[in-house]
């Protein structure tokens, strides 16, 4: 523990309007949910914000609501809640899969989807699934509410399209018609409780052997979680053939921008991304 803890303030908000008042007060209050990112920083002596309002127990933020066209996940919903939700399990398998890959059991009990999003790491496990599931984020403040496509939410490295008085309160996932195929994989530093070195989420709608609709997103290959729209375009509407797959991989190579860091290298990340995409599409092709 390297922080001078008495310098920090924590208030617990039990209602949404309480939390929003703190954020609107202009006194540099910041939300804390599960604490699985922020408390690590506190321990390391690197938590530069000082004033936190806990949103963990605000009821609206802890629910998963199912309606005909969408699922609305509260920002303080934990990974375990996500894993155990039957509709999410059935219709949004990549998100549940990612939740099962995020940390160990305890971290899954404490960590929240909203926390994972606003921590804004390009390695966030939930991000690629949210991107391919066309997620939207609902932001709320004392001034009102707005919804942003998650694909537009990251402006740059750790730079989100929200201001300090706004609270991420819901993540909305539009429900899809059946028939989509999903593929997800995380390559981490080990088999469990690992930070992602490269992760991929792919969703496809096949119409016989034509890729009618495609969503492709990767983690840890750019300053932000990345929806690879150019690669998607190279696939969308095309027949699933070897040439298509190869072309898509070429485009992918130019679209992503991985780096060398303490965990891995740019070259490795790029190659893994390509191999995983190619392998999945090839298997799909072979299965036809």
């Amino acid at each position, binding site marked *: *523990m390297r922080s001078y*803890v*008495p*310098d*920090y*303030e*924590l*208030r*617990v908000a039990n209602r949404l309007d309480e939390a929003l008042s703190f954020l609107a007060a202009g006194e540099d209050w910041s939300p*804390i949910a*599960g*604490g*699985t990112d922020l*408390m*690590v920083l*506190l*321990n*390391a002596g690197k938590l530069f914000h000082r004033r*936190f309002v*806990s949103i*963990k*127990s605000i009821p609206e933020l802890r629910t998963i609501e199912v309606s005909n066209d969408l699922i609305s996940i509260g920002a303080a919903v934990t990974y*375990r809640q996500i894993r155990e939700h039957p509709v999410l399990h059935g219709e949004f398998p990549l998100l549940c899969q990612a939740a099962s890959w995020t*940390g*160990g*059991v*305890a*971290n899954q*009990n*404490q960590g929240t989807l909203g926390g994972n999003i606003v921590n804004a790491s390009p390695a966030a496990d939930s991000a690629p699934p949210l991107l391919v599931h066309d997620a939207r984020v609902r932001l709320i403040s004392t001034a009102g509410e707005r919804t942003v496509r998650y694909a537009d939410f990251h402006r740059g490295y750790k730079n989100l399209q929200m201001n300090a008085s706004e609270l991420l309160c819901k993540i909305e996932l539009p429900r899809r018609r059946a028939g989509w195929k999903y593929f997800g994989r995380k390559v981490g530093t080990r*088999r*469990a*409780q690992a930070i992602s070195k490269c992760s991929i989420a792919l969703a496809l709608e096949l119409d016989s052997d034509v890729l009618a609709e495609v969503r492709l997103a990767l983690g840890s290959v750019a300053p932000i979680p990345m929806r690879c729209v150019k690669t998607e375009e190279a696939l969308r509407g095309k027949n699933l053939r070897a040439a298509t797959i190869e072309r898509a991989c070429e485009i992918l190579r130019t679209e992503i921008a991985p780096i060398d860091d303490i965990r891995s290298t740019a070259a490795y990340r790029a190659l893994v991304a390509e191999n995983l995409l190619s392998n999945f599409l090839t298997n799909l092709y072979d299965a036809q």
Partner: protein
Amino acid sequence: MSYQHISLVVNGVPRVVETVPMRRLLDVLREDLHLTGTKEGCGEGECGACSVLVNGELANSCLMPVGQAAGAEILTIEGVSENGAAHRVQKAFAECGGAQCGICTPGMVMASLYLLKRIVHPSREEICEALAGNLCRCTGYQKIVDAVRAAALPDS
């Protein structure tokens, strides 16, 4: 910073601590309540040596500000034995050699208890997944998994 009175129920006993709410639950347990069975191995939520149950859910107490635990029911390793008698998980660890140096053991026991509450007869894969957040450097995990299997047997 303002010190606050924070109420918790720890191992069935209501307690009140006076501290800053950002203080880690781990430190409150160990230093204010003198329950040193919960250990600090990393301070990053990676090793699980600090695992406790908070309202029945397994949590890393090094990552929980005590302010968020206000009003919660906390179970630590000290509260696991039932009336002085070892819990079947503790007995199984003893029989199977699941504890070597013992520093990870309290966390392993808590994680095992949590698993067995949710899955009565877990497979080896389910045990491994449930304990993946608890690091052990001594045992290589084999006898820990054996212990949890043994504890889960119908006649144990």
